[in-house]
């Protein structure tokens, strides 16, 4: 069996993981091990971000990180962890400028200043980007280039961490499945950083990549860490719905709304946002939680578009303006049969980001010694609703910090082979195959539908209770599922581990959603439609013998 040893183990290679690796190496870590279950620097959410990055650079207007913080806290509906939110806002400019020095290619005005636009919820132009729709790919490519130049960083692709290894209550490394061989791998690490992103892949309609099924949350919970704010899943309001669009991220419409407006219309062509308390006559300003609630409510009332969303129309925009704003994207849309001058598209909410996550302190350290988190996997900075543009900023800022503090961490315990035994044996037993009933692929599909229907943008006690019962049933079915006895690239084995992790994440979301008997931000209960000022508090999730348990933070 292969055994690796490292100073800093980083799980996940989106923006947070790659920045953490760079930072750990420059803070003195001699061995940094950077793993991804997909290909390093290709998976995760960062590379899919087509939109903007928020930072108070003050290139286009007077700005200050404290003003960015004000907007972040307001968007968070009273729940942000203010210390984490302040770190995000204060350090974002340094990270954005460093990415600029690494030639990410921020869009610039003729004057040479970095272009900044006003995304919804921001009090001034603060959001930078890489044209056209290329922010995420450019950020990922830039970070891939940086990590490839650092000898201390070892990269491994297609290695799926299935369990963390704890000794005397401290995380000392991990056990992973090597997809190409089907063999277990053990990894001893002085410090471990979870940078696996969020859990949006547990929903049927999602803008996630294949590896965002909530793995990091399950790893952290089982290792004894606390999760926070798990009920808050951000649904991006205008995810593309129809006609079928390929080769583009379904959340690609937002930048065009910044640039051109774009009207949201119900199934018979009437504007409706004003009835939900939002005035968009002058600019695109509706926060994501309110827009999502408005669209889902219109559809529920029978006023939706043919495919069950609403219309987004640019028909009022002159063709010359469309071409200027969309550039080469016009041709990509034409290949999909979309002509914005002629017809609207259909959009509807799509699971996009998870505000909740691993509870950490200002050093990105979890409550378990040896275990850190970075990026979307961290909970708390964004409260009940994330401000547009804060996700990439958070990935870079929290990644940089996690790498720095993990590099300096003193291990609380030493590696012991025996502590890894159960996880190693599990991989070996399952990789030999299992004759059983049902497949994890089928249950994953059912789980995504269940989460979308019962734990989606609109929730009630009956649906959440039904979801919990079915999730428990799926968990009970795990030991009896069929697994092919294949070693190389065993898809049924990979699905089994994904289902095992996703069910933990799904249960955490659902339990927290059931316990929060109010509506706030991204958490909307039809049976408790109002916010309760007494519940402007966070919920913590821990793993107990019977499963995930929720309690209110003091």
């Amino acid at each position, binding site marked *: 069996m292969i055994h690796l040893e490292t100073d800093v183990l980083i799980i996940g290679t989106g923006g947070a993981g790659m920045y953490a690796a760079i930072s750990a190496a420059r803070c003195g870590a001699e061995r940094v091990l950077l793993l991804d279950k997909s290909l390093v620097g290709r998976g995760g959410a960062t590379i899919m971000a087509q939109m903007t990055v928020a930072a108070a650079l003050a290139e286009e207007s007077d700005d200050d990180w404290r003003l960015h913080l004000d907007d972040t806290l307001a968007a968070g509906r009273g729940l942000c962890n203010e210390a984490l939110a302040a770190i995000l806002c204060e350090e974002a400019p340094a990270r954005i400028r460093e990415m600029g020095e690494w030639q990410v290619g921020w869009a610039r005005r003729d004057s040479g200043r970095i272009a900044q636009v006003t995304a919804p919820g921001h009090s001034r132009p603060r959001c930078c980007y890489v044209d056209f729709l290329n922010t995420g790919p450019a950020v990922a490519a830039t970070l891939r280039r940086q990590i490839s130049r650092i000898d201390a960083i070892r990269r491994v692709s297609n290695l799926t961490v299935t369990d963390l290894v704890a000794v005397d209550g401290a995380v000392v490394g991990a056990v992973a499945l090597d997809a190409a061989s089907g063999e277990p791998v053990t990894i001893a690490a002085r410090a471990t950083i979870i940078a696996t992103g969020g859990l949006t892949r547990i929903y049927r309609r999602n803008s996630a990549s*294949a590896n965002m099924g909530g793995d990091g949350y399950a790893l952290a919970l089982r290792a004894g860490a606390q999760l926070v704010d798990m009920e808050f899943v951000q649904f991006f309001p205008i995810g593309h719905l129809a006609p079928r669009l390929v*080769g583009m991220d379904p959340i690609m419409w937002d930048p065009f709304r910044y640039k051109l407006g774009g009207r949201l219309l119900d199934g018979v062509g009437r504007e409706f946002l004003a009835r939900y308390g939002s005035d968009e006559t002058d600019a695109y300003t509706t926060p994501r939680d309110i827009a999502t609630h408005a669209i889902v409510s219109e559809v529920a009332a029978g006023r939706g578009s043919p495919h069950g969303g609403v219309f987004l129309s640019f028909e009022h925009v002159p063709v010359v303006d469309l071409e200027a704003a969309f550039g080469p994207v016009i041709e990509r849309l034409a290949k999909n049969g979309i002509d914005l001058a002629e017809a609207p598209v259909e959009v509807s909410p799509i699971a996009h980001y998870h505000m909740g996550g691993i509870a950490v302190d200002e050093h990105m350290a979890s409550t378990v010694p040896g275990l850190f988190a970075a990026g979307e996997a961290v909970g708390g900075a964004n409260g009940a609703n994330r401000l547009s543009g804060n996700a990439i900023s958070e990935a870079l800022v929290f990644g940089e910090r996690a790498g720095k503090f993990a590099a300096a961490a003193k291990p609380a315990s030493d590696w012991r082979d025996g502590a890894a035994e159960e996880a190693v044996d599990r991989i070996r037993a399952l990789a030999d195959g299992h004759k059983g009933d049902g497949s994890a692929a089928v249950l994953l599909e059912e789980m995504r539908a269940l989460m979308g229907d019962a734990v989606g943008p609109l929730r009630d006690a009956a649906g959440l209770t039904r979801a919990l019962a079915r999730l428990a049933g799926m968990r009970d079915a795990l030991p009896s599922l069929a697994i092919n006895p294949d070693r190389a690239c065993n898809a049924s084995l990979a699905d089994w581990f994904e289902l095992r992790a996703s069910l933990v994440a799904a249960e955490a979301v659902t339990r927290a959603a059931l316990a929060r008997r109010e509506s706030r931000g991204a958490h909307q209960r039809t049976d408790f439609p109002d916010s309760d000022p007494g519940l402007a508090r966070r919920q913590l999730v821990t793993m107990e013998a019977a499963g995930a348990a929720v309690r209110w933070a003091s």
Partner: protein
Amino acid sequence: MKTARLKICRGTGDEPPSYEEFAVPFEDGATVLDALIWIRGHRDPSLAIRYSCINANVCKECTIAIDGRVLYACTTRLVEGAVMTLDPLPGKTRLRDLVAETRSPRERIV
């Protein structure tokens, strides 16, 4: 129901290539990757494929040979009634089914 057909290379690199044909539901605009994911969920959960971003065409992981041409499964449309032949990326070691060894040598564990 409208269908399309896929003839898919199966097995590991140690075995001679063999092909298995699947009928998949056809909807306007559907892609080869849509069909492969459908097969995994409804016909054969052991079918090995490589993909990450699913729809955005940014990860480039789903590159395979489709009727002999190197293309992305996520942006290649199904053709109603037609048979398409799918092979792993040519010139690379075949690991299983449509998965080729596309990892850089520096990113492998052994």
